[in-house]
């Protein structure tokens, strides 16, 4: 009887140890010997085949830490919760925490755009990749691209004006959710099961007229599909992508920032960026610097 009680106590203790829902900071990562990468398959950031820009960077970081790299599959809808352990509702640009979820990873890296609402839940590393959100349409669309001026804000306004009365295909609660961009008079369209990578294909097929993309991904789409798709204009000014780190992991944040800085200074980051986004420098000449 006492043995059984002890066994139960020990299991409980072990279970409690395993049931600890706090994020792992640097020391814990070193101790665990693995760096868990939360990466939603997206564009050339996380190809899904084991490579990608963010995959390469985190692999190098893991090697730098002396730990093993591990990819943790996740989705756009759960990735923030998987890092922060928070269950939340997004209302406009405000976040309402409604519960807790298990933490599944140490760092988010999948072309992750710095957004205000995300900052409320997690921290971001130093920006490493420039971006913006562009609106795309099929080449046969009656809509014509804007004539840009000298002012990005003006271009955004022109694009938004173009979209009045239109339906825009997006992915809910992601950086490609039309609802986040104050598109007055436009209607967000969603389709279940659709991923970020599927958006351009959907309009090229003719299922939808308009969608949105991060600029780097849009450049890839244009290069691979000349004459089939066209950029109407931006709905954001320049944005930045960074890696997401839990607010409970300040040491990890500091360490990773140092690593990224070293990568930039050595030119390796730029090299990796050009490898995966060859045309990025045409639009963001300082990418990786």
């Amino acid at each position, binding site marked *: 009887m006492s043995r059984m009680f002890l066994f139960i106590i020990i299991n409980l203790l072990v279970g409690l140890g395993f049931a600890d829902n706090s994020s792992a900071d640097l020391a814990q990562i070193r101790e665990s010997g693995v760096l868990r990468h939360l990466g939603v398959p997206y564009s050339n950031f996380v190809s899904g085949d084991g490579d990608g820009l963010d995959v390469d960077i985190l692999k190098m970081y893991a090697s730098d830490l002396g730990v093993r790299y591990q990819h943790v599959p996740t989705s756009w809808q759960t990735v923030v919760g998987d890092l922060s352990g928070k269950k939340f509702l997004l209302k406009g640009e405000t976040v309402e925490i409604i519960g807790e979820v298990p933490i599944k990873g140490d760092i988010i890296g999948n072309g992750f755009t710095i957004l205000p609402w995300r900052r409320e839940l997690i921290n971001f590393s130093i920006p490493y990749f420039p971006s913006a959100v*562009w609106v795309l349409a099929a080449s046969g669309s009656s809509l014509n691209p804007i*004539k840009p001026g000298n002012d990005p804000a003006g271009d955004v306004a022109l694009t938004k004006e173009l979209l009045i009365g239109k339906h825009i295909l997006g992915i809910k609660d992601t950086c490609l959710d039309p609802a986040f961009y104050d598109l007055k008079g436009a209607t967000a369209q969603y389709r279940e099961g659709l991923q970020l990578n599927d958006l351009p294909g959907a309009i090229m097929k003719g299922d939808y007229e308009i969608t949105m993309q991060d600029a780097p991904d849009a450049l890839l789409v244009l290069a691979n599909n000349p004459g089939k798709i066209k950029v109407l204009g931006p709905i954001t000014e320049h944005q930045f992508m960074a890696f997401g780190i839990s607010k409970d992991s300040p040491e990890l944040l500091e360490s990773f920032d140092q690593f990224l800085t070293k990568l930039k200074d050595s030119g390796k980051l730029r090299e990796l960026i050009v490898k995966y986004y*060859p*045309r990025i420098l*045409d639009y963001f000449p300082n990418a990786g610097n």
Partner: protein
Amino acid sequence: MMNNGKIARKLSPDWSRFVRQYWVLAVIFTVLAVLVTYLMIKLFQSSNLLAEASRKSFSQETKTIASNLDGYFERLRSHVETLAKSKAIHAYYQNKALGMSLEYGLGVAVGEVRDEFERFQSAFLAKGRPISLQIVLFDSKEMRVVTQTQNLLTDKYAEYHEVVKNVQSFQNLPMFTVVTKDAGADAFAVMSVTYKGELKGYLLTRLDLQTIKAEIFTDESQTDHAFYVIVNSIGAVFVGQKKYLGKNIWRSFGINPESQGSFDVMEVTSKDPEDTGQSLIVSGGNIAGTPFRLLRIAPTLQYVPGPATHLWQKVFLSLVAIFIIMLLFIYRSLVAQFRTYRQLQEARDTLETRVTERTSQLAETNELLQREINARSRMEESLRNSEERYRDLFEQASDLIYTMDTKGRLTSVNEVIHPVLGYVPQEFLDSDFRSIIDPQSRPIDQTNFAALIMNDVDHVGPYELLAYSKDNVPVWLEVTSRSIRKNGKPVGIHCIARDITQKKKLEAAILDVQDKYQSVVESFEGLIHITSSNHEIQFANQRLVERTGYDPVGHKCYEAIHGLSEVCSWCSSREMNSEKKYQTELLSPRDERWYHEVSSPLKQQDGSLSRIFLMHDIDDRKRAEHERERVEQQLAQSQKMEAVGTLAGGIAHDFNNLLQVILGYSQLLLGVTSLKPNEYKNVERINIAARHGADLVKGLMAFSRKAVTMPVRLNLNEPVKELMELIQHTIPRMIRVEVSLGAEMPVINADPGQVKQIIMNLALNAADAMPDGGVLTIETRKIVVDDQFYKDNIGAKPGSYCILSVTDTGIGITEEALQHIFEPFYTTKAVGKGAGLGLSMVFGIVRQHGGFIIPRSEQGYGTTISIYLPVNEELPETTPEALPELDIPIGGTETILLVEDEAHVRELAADYLQELGYTILTASNGKNALDVFRQNRLRISLVLLDLIMPEMDGRNCLRELLKIDPKLRVVMVSGCASASALDDTIELGARGFVHKPYDLGSLLSTIRHVLDSP
């Protein structure tokens, strides 16, 4: 010329003589010359063949290398074509067609194109080097570079305009073109880029010329003197010797650009400063598919054999030179010989000619001498005859003839000196003739003398001199002088003098008469002219000249003096041709002035008859006479009207009294109810007739200015406006009424009722003057009458007036009738159509208001009657208002004293008033009235007092009555009192007045009103 020809023919034998002497030498010389020439020709032909073969070889080598270049450029063209059709370029234009901007999306396609270019550069090499230094995609619509590879060289083309414009005119592309620059050139392969069939731009590939050079030329083929170059279509070198790069090869070698495409090989002379004059051989070969040409250049001597050619040339030239020199020597010696012979011939000919000339001259001289001798003989004979004639004339002339020497001494004089001057010839000979000349004439005599003697004048005069006879009598001489010459020099003077003393006297007398005549003519104040019978002015005095403004002599008198185009109406041809004197008074149309003209006949020297006219201005006098006549007429008219007015006034009073009786009793009878209808009608007719009579009397009284007026402040426009409707209804419809009322009319003092009478009267008269219709115009305006107007219109006074004008367009009134229209009873209408008092009444009313009337008429056009009423803003004196009439006669019981000098009127009034209950006391004059009043003073309530009575008139009686009883109620009665007279009585104390003939009802009303008033 003839001599030269002769000489030439004569020297021919000399030339043949020369040839005969030297024929052997000539033959040898000729044979040698022919032989040498043959040898030279043969040598030349051989050299030419050799040179030709060398040239062909040279050219063939060049063409071989050119064909190598064909392949190179063909490969190059193919590469460029492939690149121009690449997917990257197609994708760029696809994306551009979608409208994407470089900022958002199109940059991807641009980057892809650039990558494609760089792949091309790396892929296509020649001799290990890229064949293209730079590749550019140039948008020909936007004229800008879309993208380009990095430039391997330091210099850049900013916009590639130069390159593009070189090829734009060419249809077949790809195209090679060259652009020259300082000490160099660039070559491009240009390919057009199209999208969906539309030209979008050009793909320019800048060629590496070093590669081309290395591809083609070996070091051995290039030396400083013998080398290859490649030129473009205009000869610019872009591959080849450094010193020729960028230069135009045709210009450097003086090759005609038009022949550059057709020659295979040619020899040129270098114009290069470094080797000027060097002979070069040039061969060329076209590079297929390009506008380029490969040229090989080398010194001629090095490649084309010709030492023999040069030597032959030198020898040939030397021989030719020697031959020419020898010919020159021979020619010179022959020419010298010819010249000598010619000189000898000329000398001989000259000598012969001179001898002939001299002989003929001697013969002519001899002939002349003979002629002269004959002429002298004739002259001497003629001279003798002349002297004899002169002597006769001298002695027998009627004029004084004399001669003087150069000192003025008389050398001869004829006998006439005696009758003219009283001297005998001997007395004056050898003395100074000028001593008898009057000092005043001496200057002219001396001047003429000096002219004849010293100034080379032949003849002076005639001139006049005053001399004195032996008896010291003044004698006038008219002298004509001529100089006497010997050998051209004056040696004396010959004078003819005529005695003109009598003539001078006559002239003086004529002048004297002329002066007197002139002063008489000019002092005349009028116009004087002498005119021929056909009206042509022959003389005009100064005043007439001033009148016409020009000299009228020669002009027609009616035109110059009166400004007429034909003979004056008062002038007849009978008068112009008469020898009688005429006078007349005329009004000159030229200046509208009166003149008194007197004309008298004047016989001219040629026997023709003219007339002398004297015209004296009498205009002022005439006008004064007219004015006086007019004023006298106006005055007479005014006096006449005044007299008529007085008469009318006097008659009016008596008539009123008579009418009062008739009117009153007829009115009483009409009140009698027992009258039968026809009796009533008769009485009514009597009453109506009496009323008409009363109206006539009113008119007369108005004319005589004795009507009663009640003036008030009146705007003349008001009565006009009030009567318009009435006038419109009264006058016939075919007469149109027009009204023109003056603005801001000043106020006048006038009786509105009388003014209306005037308007109606004038309007009705005007309507009567237009039986067939017309226009009736009523106009008001204001005017200020000045002194001149006052002078022109008797009765007018200077001042401000309001004018009322009534105008018709009727038949008008004759001048004679116009003088009478205002007279009472004057009428031009038929009997029964009017009494003729209307205008006279108007006249009277106007005069009573202090105004005047001006009638104007023109027969056939119409008449205007203008009424002038003076402006007077002073308040009029108060005039008692007319009392309202009572509809039902109301009587009374009071006692009334009735004072009336006319018995029937007195009885009428007394009977009427008594019937109505009044107690009536009567009196027949003022004196009597006073007596009755004193006696019955306490019971008399009212006095009815006639104004005009004998012994004591109503006014004086009133005064006396009021002295007795100041509160006495008195009513004045009159048939012709003026407003002023009535005003007087009111001022004195009368309480009212009644006008005769009065209506009995109105009498009662007045009495009752006065009795009832406080």
